[in-house]
């Protein structure tokens, strides 16, 4: 679909290269994103958060753990987001929290996407017994509820380092996406271009990397992004239950301390507000970019009108055909 929409503004695309499938799906995504307002807004928010995370040491103004400010101050010129009950600067916590929440989100998503690929994609390509076992394994993991499993695992582990959190979240969050990737492989592995590659004697590895993967890039990106959102929500959930690293600063631990430090009783809305808003905004930016991806994989979502003229004509023929019978 995306190849057909290539127009002269994109002359730099190598249309006749052997990697056309790859360029069409990745550039197709970028192209749809260029046209899609929602995706643009999402992209801008996304980049904004990344910048905040990277520049945390520069823009934080204060240490996020320093407790030498007056407690429970509403937002003012000194403390842009106010202070916590312990006299910490909420703005500094938000900025540093952005960094650590994003790190856990990206790390856990990388782990779970890796699992989704290995368990969902590879067996599906070869098919047979291994695929059936892995598909059942995946389906079992889909129905076992994720957060309770993470809670139990985290409670046994007794170690709340960033790496441990990433591994726990990553290991429990791959199943849904493995199924989506598997479904895609199943439709791709018998397409003409894959058979053509097979008949020319390409190795399985070559087919997977050069023929199938490029066509799954958009799905793969979607998987990665949903993984990040899921991981950040999961981390915030675990931290809220006191299972995270509560001496560190993240969006999740900000919520934990706001709840357990009396933000509600003192009406300290400024203490409660930023952490969750960060999660919701960042999650929204990921989802908005995913809309553009959906439209690449499903062109029908992109159509402006279902009643184009040739459709009406076709319907007329259908009507006539019926009346003749």
């Amino acid at each position, binding site marked *: 679909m995306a190849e057909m929409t290539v127009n002269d503004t994109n002359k730099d695309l190598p249309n006749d290269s052997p990697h056309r499938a790859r360029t069409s799906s990745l550039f197709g995504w970028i192209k749809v994103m260029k046209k899609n307002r929602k995706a643009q807004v999402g992209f801008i928010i996304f980049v904004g958060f990344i910048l905040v995370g990277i520049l945390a040491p520069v823009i934080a103004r204060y240490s996020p753990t320093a407790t030498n400010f007056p407690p429970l101050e509403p937002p003012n010129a000194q403390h842009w987001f106010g202070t916590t009950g312990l006299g910490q600067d909420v703005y500094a916590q938000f900025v540093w929290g952005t960094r650590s929440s994003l790190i856990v989100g990206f790390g856990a998503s990388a782990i779970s996407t890796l699992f989704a690929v290995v368990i969902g994609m590879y067996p599906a390509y070869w098919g047979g017994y291994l695929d059936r076992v892995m598909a059942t394994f995946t389906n079992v993991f889909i*129905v*076992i509820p994720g957060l309770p499993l993470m809670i*139990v695992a985290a409670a046994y582990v007794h170690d709340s380092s960033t790496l441990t959190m990433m591994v726990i979240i990553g290991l429990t969050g791959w199943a849904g996406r493995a199924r989506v990737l598997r479904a895609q492989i199943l439709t791709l592995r018998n397409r003409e271009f894959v058979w053509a590659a097979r008949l020319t004697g390409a190795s399985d590895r070559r087919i997977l990397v050069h023929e199938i993967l490029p066509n799954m890039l958009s799905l793969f990106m979607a998987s990665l992004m949903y993984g990040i959102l899921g991981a950040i929500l999961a981390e915030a959930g675990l931290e809220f239950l006191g299972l995270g690293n509560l001496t560190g600063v993240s969006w999740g631990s900000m919520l934990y301390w706001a709840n357990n430090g009396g933000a509600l009783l003192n*009406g300290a809305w400024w203490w409660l507000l930023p*952490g969750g808003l960060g*999660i*919701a905004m960042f999650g929204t930016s990921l989802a908005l970019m995913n809309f553009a991806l959906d439209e690449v994989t499903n062109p029908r979502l992109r159509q402006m009108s279902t009643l184009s003229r040739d459709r009406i004509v076709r319907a*007329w023929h259908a009507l006539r055909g019926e009346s003749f019978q």
Partner: protein
Amino acid sequence: MRYILDRLGFLLISAWAAVTINFILPRLMPGNPALLMVDRYQGELGPRALAAIKLQFGITSQPMLTQYWHYLGNLLQGHLGISLTYYPVSVSHIIATSLPWTLGLAGTATVIAAILGTLLGIFAAWKRNLRTDSILTTGTTFTGAIPHQYLGLLLLLILSYHFHWFPVAHSYSASMTPQWTFPFAETVVYHSLLPAVTIVVPGLGGWLLHMRNNMIQTLGDDYIVFAQAKGVSPRGVMLRHAARNALLPSVTNFAMAIGFVVGGVLLVEVVFSYPGVGYQLFTAVQNEDYPLMQGLFLIISLSVLVLNFLVDLLYGLIDPRARRTGVA
């Protein structure tokens, strides 16, 4: 029939997986975490309870396989052990008192979210690519990314602490005793309003998007064009032709939605101190009460598995194609 057996088989396999995870996890961890727990509770427990707990968590010289058989045997007889937090109350008793609260809250919230989200999805598909659609999809995408605990805390802060419109905790007024009367039902509904809203709002987006995309997919089909051409009103095309067919795949969405709701309910119960399994799980984790934690994980998983099984059966009933090919 084959379909039912197939689904039943899957239910058994997944139940076995949940049971086995429960058995393996504490034994998998470096330096059995149950040892610490036993040390902590040494003085408070009777020798028999202590021995039972050691057996339950693998602090024994028995071979793993014997322990596993023992564990399975105990489960089949309904022995989940004794809670350490509420010693000497059994885990089964705590589950029996907390599970109904969770099922009621989560069940009502899921049904409301499914109906409301699906209706909004139909509406968004109707107005596709217009402003209404854009506002609905973007808006529910945002609410879908709000962490449950955050929304709950915000509602508590504004509506309960500031305006005093809603209670701050628990599932019924402290001055009443649970009974099947109208005033009691009233206080239960009143106490569950905020928790239910907190579960429904983040859940809407999934249903809405799913239904909207299914609808748009369906609207491109030939029979829709045919219906439009033969003069069916736009409303009729939307509701009687498109929505009815787009609704089918939404049923499978339940499997995903249940997982999301369960995670949400756990957190919401903690925020509102709602006495369901989620709140008990939180208590168990805080007190390192591993027997209670295991039992709760098991019952939460099994409830979800059985619900999925029922939804699968329902799907097979309404869509004959599923009976032939099977839904994954």
